[in-house]
């Protein structure tokens, strides 16, 4: 860890371009600023297209009526909540192994968005379950493991928030993220087994309406929208975190928005 701080500081002057260049906050900060608007544009474009397909092209479902349209937000949120956790744990592992500070910052920046996606999955699922199953919540395997995933996110965020020293927070967060990543599949299968052993649950999500092509298109478009949104927000948050953590460096103090 000692070395990384130094090399990161020296790198800009070295003039040699190699891949790790963008692993230094110094060079990543302006790049993130350049990338961010593109992801916003993509997110909005996919969002408009997805909503159009979802509300005006996709036909009414035979069994569920119009209520099924919740799928266009529910499934993207569910997918991303799981995907972001994997990415976060991946960054954490990189940070722990290679000691690049940016990796820890990415993990920290992704967590709130991942938690938000998990929350949206729970919320939209509940709002779907009420009309379809007649109840806001059942202890189905998927639902339960999504809930636990949400808790894992909260644990990660709370741990990082409780530690003041950013270097320590990164490493401690990395350990809990990795331990969680090992546990997510275990939890998923244990919950699945737990539920199916007792009773055939009265409803099952895999019996979802046979999906029409247009519905599928809409879902994919919305998933892309959520994905781009997550990247855009995370980029913004990474920038904020870089500013906060690198406050003592010269290059931050020389930034125009700081000097002004």
């Amino acid at each position: 860890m000692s070395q990384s701080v130094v090399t990161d500081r020296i790198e800009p002057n070295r003039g040699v371009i190699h891949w790790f260049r963008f692993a230094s906050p110094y060079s990543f900060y302006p790049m993130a600023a350049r990338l961010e608007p593109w992801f916003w544009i993509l997110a909005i474009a996919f969002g408009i297209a997805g909503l159009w397909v979802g509300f005006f092209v996709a036909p009414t479902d035979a069994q569920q009526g119009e209520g099924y349209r919740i799928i266009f937000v529910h499934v993207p949120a569910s997918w991303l909540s799981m995907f972001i956790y994997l990415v976060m744990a991946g960054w954490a592992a990189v940070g722990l192994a290679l000691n690049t500070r940016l990796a820890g910052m990415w993990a920290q920046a992704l967590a709130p968005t991942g938690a938000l996606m998990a929350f949206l999955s729970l919320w939209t699922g509940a709002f779907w379950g009420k009309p379809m199953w007649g109840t806001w919540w059942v202890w189905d395997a998927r639902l339960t493991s999504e809930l636990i995933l949400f808790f894992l996110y909260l644990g990660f965020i709370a741990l990082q928030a409780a530690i003041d020293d950013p270097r320590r927070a990164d490493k401690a967060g990395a350990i809990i993220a990795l331990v969680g990543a090992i546990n997510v599949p275990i939890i998923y299968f244990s919950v699945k087994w737990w539920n199916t052993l007792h009773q055939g649950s009265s409803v099952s999500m895999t019996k979802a309406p046979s999906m029409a092509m247009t519905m599928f298109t809409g879902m994919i478009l919305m998933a892309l929208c959520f994905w781009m949104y997550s990247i855009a927000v995370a980029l913004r948050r990474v920038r904020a975190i870089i500013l906060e953590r690198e406050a003592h460096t010269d290059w931050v103090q020389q930034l125009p928005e700081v000097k002004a």
Partner: protein
Amino acid sequence: MKAILAVVRRDLLLAMRRKTEVLTALFFFVIVTSLFPLGIGPETALLRKIAPGVLWVGALLATMLGLQRMFAADHADGTLEQMVLSPSPLGLLVSGKNIAHWLVSGLPLVVLAPILGIQFDLTAGELGVLMLSLLLGTPVLSLVGSIGAALTLGVRGGGVLLSLLVLPLYVPALIFGAGAVQAYNSGLGAAGHLSLLAALLVMALFFAPWATTAALRIALE
């Protein structure tokens, strides 16, 4: 090896001196499981049904309460620093603390569980399965818990933060443990659940001390 023994001996000695601590963790288990009949009502059939779940959740909470003290005292008075600086490898010392923790806070739960099970009108067979599931499960709780304990060391709001970190990770042990009794009950046999629990134990034995050691080093940076 000598270092492991030294740590186990030391922690047991300390536990003997702080007798109340050990005993009250047990009493906590007893009280929590006894609170449920009070909150839920005295129907025997209902109580028998929820008994494995309640006993396992009780064991889980009782273990969790003790977790925080696993390293906290050693951290506060600087002993942990001395352990890091000691010539023996930290991983061994951590294993020693894990063993001591289980002996002090896991094993008594296993022994006490049948007595509490009687309160819920469980049969001898069910009690046996319950004990076996706790025997395999409580070391998992200690091992996984020690990761959380190390991570929250010296962190503000440590106690409850610890539960937030650790309780979700306890879910598989809880499901298989309580599930074993229920499966036995419903005639399916507990073997499946118990072997899964054993697999969890092996995995925890493998990975947890490593993660705990890493977390401790971070905490002391």
